[in-house]
């Protein structure tokens, strides 16, 4: 469904990612694991159009999408939930969610999806008029995912959803991610918490210093000695 | 390189040589009627051009009159007069460029200026070159500026006699409030008006300056009206401030009398009804009034014929005071040159300074100023008083500022000193 072919991105002289090929299959959860600075976020930024490619191609189904603006990419159903959430902190929850639905015009469907998001995250419903800045870290993460869902994604790019939230909440978020994927939304997930990522995903890639060093199903990756040592702490 | 001129080129060079020689020999005899150059240096464009550009009308009328008679007779010679303009845009550094060009290149014998910043900037150069500078106002008069003369108006001294006039004619108007923008010319007008108010035992209920940055005049007028004045003097407020001040006085319900240096009536009546300005006191007479000399009356009708509605050079506006002010500089200069029998600036200056009762457009005038400016280079002309009546500015009375000053010297010097305006305070 989403395919990166030999993608490279440079920031000035620095190679952020180098010759990367990734495929995300329809309805699957694909994960990118790697340590800090390995180039995971850059991958997502390349897909969503925030970082221009120096080489390579990106396809959505059979259409080339590299070179399109972020606006055009999101309109094709690729929705990026950035690291650090990037919420609109001085706006309330409802407005944040509605920004997610900015490109959509069907009011009834927007309302329906809003209710669906509130079902996933009941906390958000209760506090819907509260400013995003006044939410807890976990609630903010829920809001970020909820806002992504409001864009009616076909593919959701999640950047470190577990960052800065408690283990208990992490589990809850993981559950919701799983639930989302059952609704025919493909997910490309970036995580430092590799064990969580591998538990969730069907397929994964391991990034080290901008290059893919391993790829495989979650079982293959979980059983790899290097990954066990370097990422799972076993 | 070979020098290989054909016959044609030689012929051509010859022709050019002949034309040049002829040209010189032809122009020689014409030079016998002499021409004298006069520099007209000032803001001909930019925000301050209103003080300079209109003056060219009066200058043109005077110059054309002289030249059509064959020129100005000075001693044994007759001079055609040529005005050379230089636009300073109100920028002193451009005035310095201009004065160098006018003196060194055009050999001007007189510089006509507005006075103020332009005139001050050129003083070091003109003093070295010994060229006379005439200005509208006297604020540049100083011992270190011996070649500067304040000719055209009695600004800002005239505020003393307008307050005197109010005291004489409206003795019931006892409480006076004064305000003006905070800069040298504003402070000068305030000092003279305050002196006259005190000399006449008026009660000064408000006397404050406002900043030149002011955009909202409502609070100033509210503060003034809270003191319940009978007379509000806006002194020498600049025209753009004056319009707002007058409007606020009207809107906040002022019922008394206004005094200020001049009235832009068309602009003011766009904001307040005509009756509001009845009995307001000003200083700039229309020159067709019988209180003024015949020369002034004649100038006014010449102006109307040439620049007025339907005239030869219809200028599309009403006559106003600046129209005569540069003309009168030329009159005074011509008087000095004829007395000296020469157009040489040093001689003209000496002849002028030695004269009494000089022929100013507004009437016979005399030098004054050593106690205030440290030098007697301010020419004081008769001061007319105007009142606004039914929307028209009518010339109503005439005062002598020198006489007034001699009577009220002490209080005047006190206020000039208070606002740091005396020559030895600078």
């Amino acid at each position: 469904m989403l395919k990166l072919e030999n993608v490279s991105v440079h920031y000035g002289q620095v190679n952020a990612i180098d010759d990367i090929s990734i495929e995300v299959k329809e309805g699957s959860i694909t994960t990118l694991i790697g340590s800090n600075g390995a180039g995971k976020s850059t991958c997502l930024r390349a897909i969503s159009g925030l970082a221009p490619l120096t080489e390579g191609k990106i396809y959505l189904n059979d259409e080339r999408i590299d070179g399109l603006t972020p606006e055009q990419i999101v309109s094709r159903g690729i929705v990026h939930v950035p690291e650090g959430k990037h919420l609109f902190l001085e706006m309330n929850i409802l407005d944040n969610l509605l920004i997610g639905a900015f490109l959509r015009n069907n009011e009834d469907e927007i309302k329906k999806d809003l209710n669906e998001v509130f079902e996933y995250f009941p906390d958000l419903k209760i506090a819907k008029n509260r400013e995003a800045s006044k939410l807890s870290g976990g609630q903010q993460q829920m809001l970020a995912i909820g806002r992504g869902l409001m864009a009616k994604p076909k593919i959701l790019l999640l950047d470190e959803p577990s960052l800065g939230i408690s283990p208990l909440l992490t589990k809850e978020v993981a559950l919701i991610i799983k639930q989302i994927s059952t609704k025919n939304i493909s997910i490309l997930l970036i995580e430092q918490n590799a064990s969580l990522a591998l538990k969730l995903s069907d397929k994964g890639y391991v990034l080290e210093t901008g290059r893919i060093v391993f790829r495989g199903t979650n079982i293959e990756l979980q059983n790899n000695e290097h990954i066990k040592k370097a990422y799972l702490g076993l | 390189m070979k020098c290989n001129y054909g016959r044609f080129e030689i012929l051509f060079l010859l022709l050019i040589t002949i034309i040049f020689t002829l040209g010189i020999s032809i122009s020689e005899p014409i030079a016998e009627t002499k021409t004298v150059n006069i520099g007209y240096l000032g803001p001909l464009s930019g925000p301050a051009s209103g003080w300079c550009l209109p003056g060219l009308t009066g200058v043109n009328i005077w110059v054309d009159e002289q030249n059509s008679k064959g020129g100005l007779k000075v001693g044994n010679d007759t001079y055609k007069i040529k005005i050379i303009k230089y636009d300073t845009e109100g920028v002193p550094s451009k005035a310095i460029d201009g004065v160098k060009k006018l003196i060194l290149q055009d050999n001007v014998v007189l510089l006509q200026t507005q006075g103020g910043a332009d005139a001050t900037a050129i003083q070091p150069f003109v003093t070295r070159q010994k060229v006379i500078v005439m200005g509208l106002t006297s604020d540049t008069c100083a011992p270190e500026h011996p070649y500067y003369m304040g000719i055209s108006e009695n600004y800002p001294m005239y505020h003393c006699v307008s307050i005197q006039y109010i005291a004489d004619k409206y003795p019931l108007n006892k409480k006076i409030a004064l305000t003006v923008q905070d800069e040298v010319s504003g402070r000068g007008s305030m000092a003279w008006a305050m002196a006259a108010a005190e000399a006449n035992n008026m009660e000064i209920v408000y006397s404050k300056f406002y900043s030149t940055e002011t955009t909202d005049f409502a609070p100033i007028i509210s503060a003034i009206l809270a003191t319940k004045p009978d007379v509000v003097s806006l002194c020498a407020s600049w025209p753009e401030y004056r319009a707002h001040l007058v409007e606020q006085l009207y809107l906040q319900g002022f019922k008394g009398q206004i005094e200020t240096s001049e009235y832009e009536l068309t602009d003011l009546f766009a904001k307040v009804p005509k009756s509001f300005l009845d009995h307001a006191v000003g200083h700039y007479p229309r020159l067709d009034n019988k209180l003024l000399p015949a020369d002034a009356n004649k100038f006014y009708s010449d102006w109307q014929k040439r620049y007025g509605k339907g005239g030869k050079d219809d200028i599309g506006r009403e006559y106003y005071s600046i129209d005569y002010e540069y003309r009168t500089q030329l009159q005074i200069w011509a008087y000095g040159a004829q007395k000296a029998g020469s157009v040489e600036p040093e001689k003209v200056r000496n002849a002028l300074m030695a004269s009494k009762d000089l022929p100013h457009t507004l009437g016979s005038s005399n030098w004054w100023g050593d106690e205030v400016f440290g030098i007697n280079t301010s020419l004081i002309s008769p001061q007319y008083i105007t009142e606004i009546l039914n929307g028209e500015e009518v010339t109503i009375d005439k005062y002598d500022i020198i006489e007034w000053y001699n009577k009220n010297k002490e209080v005047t010097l006190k206020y000039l000193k208070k606002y740091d305006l005396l020559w030895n305070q600078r």
Partner: protein
Amino acid sequence: MELILQTIANGLIASAFYAIIAVGLSLTFGVMNTVNYAHGEFYMIGAYTVWQLYAIHHWPFFLAVGIATILVGLLGIIVERIIFRPVRGKALSSFIISVGMVFIIQVFVARMWGVGHVKPVPAVFKGALDIFGVTIGWQRVIILPSAVIVFLGFFYFLRNSKWGRALRAVALDSEAASLYGINVNKCAAIALGIGSAMAGLAGALMAPIMSVTPYMGHSVIWTCFVVVIVGGAGNIKGTIIAALVFGYLNTIVSTIFDSTVASIVSSVFMLTFLSIRPQGILGYAEK
């Protein structure tokens, strides 16, 4: 007592005037992240439009004001497209280009209609509102309901419309906003359009009681910068509060002392305030 009431009224009018101009400036700053130094010149163009249409061609005053507002708004949109957009994100270039615009507009207007004499715009309402011994010229009174209507409409737009929400989102985090399909360029154009229209409206309404000259923008823009900075750059509510603070500060000090003291007091107040609270009245601390 009368003077106190009069001062309260004077201050309210002055505040409303500053608020309209400053909110426009604050909005463009918030969304574009660039200061439009030519904002004062847009105000001047509003006044010139009214001078041309109403004073010279005798069109109805409020029609002239409406046209001035729309015209200056369109001008803002054009300026965003051809001047600000190419230099977006380059702080120095956008500073230089916008200061350059100040001079270009001033010189253009000066060449076109001359300088020197203030352009006379007749008062539309020569009378004054007179209540409780307080008198305010009607021409000044109308600035107050105009400001209230403009702000109510503007807040409704920001809160309840899709594009209003988008403007707020871009102001808070333009990258995140673009991730949800918000066209940042379009938002910048809308912000500069609305912001400029406010400047144009203020200039148009005030033309009969201000000195209409090519340089008139100069005299108001300093105070408005101070208001925007103290209000917390980009913060609309903060800007309105700051406009009230400075409107009253200026009026009260001008009444009791004089306007020279008033401008000194305003500047000192701003500096003291910012050293205590650099984020502005309501502003959030950066990051």
